[in-house]
């Protein structure tokens, strides 16, 4: 029996193969599966690469990193727990030479470096790399090739750092423990460990890193010892996570969230296509039943046809995804060196299976209707029922659950899903208002426009579905493209307006005094200064941070490192309170903090929760009493965590400052002088910021462009599906109009007017949706004021109007191929 059904299903599948609704369904399924499978394959390869990379490139069995030097007792304990220990130091410093400067990581090592792996150097930029044992001798410095080029140095040149002079003696090619520094592309230099002490940098700015060779059991003991004795320190080991793992996990989650948008669009397209499917399959099933077949037969045939469709797509999806996987790995090989492509059959199959399950949920209304169908449906088609609404609601819930699962940033997900919902409501409201008011206002008039408005109002429900489908796609496309453009524009203009053109991100108290004096001497405008100290969150409500939440997020990633803790008596001008109460000016209760709203949301914190910080090796516990957000217009220096000024009396720790300066063109060379005397001042110019930003933007542009292509493809399919869903109705309407003595040209005019009105509603809805989303997300996620350009919005409106109208009229051409004769023979 099943065999017979299979043959029958195959027969009908082949007959329907070229029908538009089947073709559209195949396109949606194929595009989405290729995207998801490619994403999964690429992610998996990178995760495997990171794991393998960790095993080979750690440069030690374990590495302990912390801000301060270990005490003698602590160092003795460490040596007892390991076979060998090598100490290195590292600081961010700005190197200067002949009026040029370049920020770099300055590392200090001894003759016992490296512990494991190979240190590679060369005697000139062109010479081959050779294995070197031990770091540079005192008075020597080795720089990497980029730093060489950037400062225009040659071997044998002398450069000054602080009070010391160093001879450039080698080119640094590779350090075996580089991996520990995470995804970091800073330029690098190495000096002797004894010279670092002579340079007398503030000790708390130096990162102390202990490379340890240890057995598995020793590593375990080491971890326990660190957790008990040095909670603010960090341990990386061969059995643990790659430093890039959480970075990649967050990238993956972001892409996952982005793919949710594609799933939303696919769901819209499938919902539109299902309307045609539903009618055809219901009719077919009812005819079968009227000929004596059981209800199950119709359902089985429908299921088998759907499965055949999917099965035929799978080889195409598998091959294309593998090709895209290979291309993406080629592109990523710049970041992940020596990453290799492999065929991943099991993962491909697993991902396709998950996609197929999701498609089945989207398609379920068709099968449910078939299950409820009866011969009577031949006489009364299109009976709606509650279960269909329920199934559609289930599909929506599935989408939201997938969105939540992939969420890396609770607030962002909530805002994205919220924005989509607001846009849906907005478009429904605009459709209703425009069509109702339009129809009412033109009631007294006659002609094609009032007639079109009247017909659209009469078809409000089906028309609204079409408008929502296309409108949502347009909104998503518009938002993606706007985000790309506005982020760049707003950020650059914002920086210029409020922050001057040099930002000091870290200056100790003496360094800040030097900056003040220097700016006073040279008449340089010092815009703002804000003090802070470094603190590391180790516990939340007496629970270790790593155990409090395992869900990766921006906030968690930042809190795992030392953060800047700011103090102030009153709420800063560029913050405003969203929860709780800001402390009184002269409060004695110093153990309270205000936390940024996004951090609260990401970590699920609420007022009254307690955070324990390690500040300069001392533990302090604070209670969250307020929550603040950034407010634009009063400078961009803002802090996630702030405490009362009174706290500073109780905390003994080095204090630093953030500041912003405005330099004119003639004053730029003066920076070199400041940096030569104070190489550890962290300053970045707007030019550098812009360059860094451009690099990031360049990468984001590539990703977003690829993503926009996917959205455009799906948006076209949504438009075609929505037209396909209404095609039979449109054909009939046109034939009936022609039976009143009108020509095809009248139908074409009506069609153009209808699409213009549809496009207008879509354009208004999607632009308004983008605006609201911009207001919500820009402010909260990027701390930027969303200032849309009205000219660009107007151009966008015109582009949407013309594109949707042209595409709509072109895709509706089949419905214009109607005639009175068809009505006559339509029995």
């Amino acid at each position, binding site marked *: 029996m099943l065999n017979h059904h299979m043959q029958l299903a195959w027969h009908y599948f082949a007959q329907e193969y070229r029908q538009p609704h089947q073709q559209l369904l195949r396109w949606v399924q194929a595009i989405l599966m290729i995207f998801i499978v490619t994403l999964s394959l690429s992610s998996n390869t990178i995760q495997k690469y990171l794991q393998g990379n960790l095993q080979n490139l750690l440069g030690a069995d374990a590495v302990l990193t912390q801000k301060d030097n270990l005490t003698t007792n602590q160092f003795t304990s460490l040596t007892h727990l390991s076979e060998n220990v090598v100490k290195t130091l590292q600081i961010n410093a700005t190197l200067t030479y002949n009026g040029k400067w370049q920020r770099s990581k300055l590392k200090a090592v001894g003759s016992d470096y490296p512990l494991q792996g190979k240190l590679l150097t060369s005697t000139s930029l062109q010479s081959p790399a050779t294995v070197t044992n031990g770091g540079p001798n005192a008075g020597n410095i080795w720089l990497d090739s980029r730093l060489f080029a950037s400062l225009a140095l040659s071997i044998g040149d002398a450069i000054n750092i602080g009070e010391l002079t160093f001879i450039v003696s080698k080119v640094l090619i590779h350090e075996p423990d580089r991996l520990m520094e995470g995804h970091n592309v800073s330029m690098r230099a190495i000096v002797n460990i004894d010279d670092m002490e002579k340079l007398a940098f503030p000790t708390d700015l130096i990162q102390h890193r202990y490379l340890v060779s240890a057995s598995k059991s020793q590593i375990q003991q080491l971890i326990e010892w660190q957790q008990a004795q040095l909670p603010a320190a960090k341990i990386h080991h061969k059995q643990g996570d790659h430093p890039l793992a959480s970075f990649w996990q967050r990238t993956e989650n972001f892409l996952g969230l982005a793919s949710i948008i594609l799933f939303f669009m696919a769901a819209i397209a499938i919902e539109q296509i299902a309307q045609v499917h539903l009618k055809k399959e219901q009719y077919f099933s009812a005819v079968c039943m009227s000929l004596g077949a059981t209800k199950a037969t119709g359902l089985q045939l429908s299921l088998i046809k759907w499965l055949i469709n999917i099965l035929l797509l799978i080889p195409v999806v598998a091959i294309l995804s593998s090709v895209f996987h290979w291309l993406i790995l080629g592109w990523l090989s710049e970041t992940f060196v020596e990453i290799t492509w492999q065929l991943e059959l099991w993962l491909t199959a697993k991902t396709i299976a998950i996609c197929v399950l999701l498609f089945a949920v989207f398609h379920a209304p068709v099968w449910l209707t078939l299950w409820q169908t009866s011969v009577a449906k031949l006489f009364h088609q299109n009976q709606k029922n509650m279960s269909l609404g329920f199934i559609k609601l289930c599909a929506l819930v599935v989408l939201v659950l997938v969105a939540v699962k992939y969420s890396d940033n609770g607030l962002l997900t909530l805002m994205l899903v919220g924005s989509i919902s607001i846009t849906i409501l907005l478009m429904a409201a605009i459709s209703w208002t425009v069509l109702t008011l339009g129809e009412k206002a033109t009631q007294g008039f006659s002609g094609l426009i009032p007639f079109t408005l009247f017909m659209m109002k009469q078809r409000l429900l089906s028309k609204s579905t079409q408008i929502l489908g296309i409108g949502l796609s347009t909104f998503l496309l518009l938002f993606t493209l706007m985000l790309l453009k506005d982020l760049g524009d707003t950020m650059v203009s914002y920086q210029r307006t409020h922050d001057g053109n040099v930002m000091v991100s870290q200056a100790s108290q003496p360094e800040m005094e030097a900056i003040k004096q220097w700016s006073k001497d040279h008449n340089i405008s010092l815009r703002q200064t804000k003090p802070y100290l470094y603190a590391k969150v180790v516990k939340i409500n007496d629970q270790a941070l790593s155990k409090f939440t395992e869900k990766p997020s921006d906030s968690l990633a930042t809190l795992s490192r030392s953060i800047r803790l700011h103090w102030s008596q009153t709420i800063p001008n560029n913050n405003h309170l969203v929860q709780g109460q800001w402390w009184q000016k002269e409060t004695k209760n110093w153990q309270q903090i205000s936390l940024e709203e996004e951090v609260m949301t990401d970590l699920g914190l609420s007022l009254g929760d307690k955070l324990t910080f390690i500040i300069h090796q001392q533990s302090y516990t604070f209670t969250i009493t307020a929550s603040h957000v950034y407010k634009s217009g009063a400078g961009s220096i803002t802090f996630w965590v702030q405490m009362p000024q009174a706290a500073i009396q109780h905390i003994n720790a080095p204090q630093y400052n953030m500041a912003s300066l405005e330099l004119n063109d003639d004053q730029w060379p003066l920076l070199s002088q400041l940096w030569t005397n104070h190489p550890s001042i962290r300053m970045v110019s707007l030019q550098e910021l812009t360059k860094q930003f451009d690099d990031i933007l360049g990468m984001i542009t590539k990703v977003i462009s690829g993503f926009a292509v996917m959205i455009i493809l799906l948006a076209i399919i949504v438009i075609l599906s929505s037209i396909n869903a209404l095609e039979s109705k449109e054909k009939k309407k046109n034939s009936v109009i022609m039976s009143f003595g009108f020509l095809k040209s009248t139908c074409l005019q009506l069609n153009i007017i209808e699409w213009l009105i549809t496009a207008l509603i879509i354009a208004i809805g999607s632009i308004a949706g983008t605006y609201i989303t911009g207001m919500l997300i820009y402010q909260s996620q990027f701390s930027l004021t969303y200032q849309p350009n009205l000219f660009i919005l107007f151009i966008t409106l015109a582009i949407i109007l013309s594109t949707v109208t042209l595409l709509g009229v072109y895709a509706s051409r089949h419905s214009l191929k109607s005639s009175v004769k068809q009505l006559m023979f*339509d029995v």
Partner: protein
Amino acid sequence: MPCSIELKNVSQSFGNLASNNMTSESKSPTITLFENLDLSISQGQSYAITGPSGAGKSSLLMLLSGLEKPSSGQGSFINDKHISTLDNLRSDIGFIFQQFHLLPELTALHNIALPLKLRGDKQAISKARHWLEKVGLSDRADHKPSQLSGGEQQRVAIARALVFSPKFIFADEPTGNLDQHNANEISDILFACCQENNAGLIIVTHSNALASKAQNIYSLADGALTKTSSRNSAGDQQTEKNATHDLTKNLSTNERLVASC
């Protein structure tokens, strides 16, 4: 001055589409529906064309309405002694179909108002309401087609076809989907309304009962059109009116109103 439609020496045949790309020798023979056919249709008169399935009745209707071109011969539209092609007939004709073809999303009233709205008539709704009354459905104005019976839907379709006062109405099996009682009622309404509006009515039907109500009855069979009956004289018209009167005698008030149109 009444208008008329004339077909002279008209033939209609179709080539076998499947063999279009074959050589001339291998082509299947063309199917000829009718040859050298002459027919004259006058405004204000009613015509019935009967014949077996596949004889070409509907094709003849398409030719008469100018929606299709004949393979040979000529069709013309004579309006006030001015002779033109049948293309000029387009705005003066209405259609009534076996399947009614009302737009499902519109109410009965709005379905009727549709052709007037398209023509820019500001009185569309009041005229449509008047026609609803004429066809006896004034209480069904706000009902959608799915809420109307087959007979009621066809009444709406008749009102819709006549509301813009076309000179000719073409009806393809207008009672083919209705029971005997409804078929009688609808045909009475159709004839009465066309007569009142001085519209020429051309019906294609299998039903002898329906055909017998027309003033001119033609039979199309084996490619030839034969006139089987004509009641064109004043006496015939009087007889017809009496017959209509007899028919309406037994109808309800509403139905009488309808039949008198």
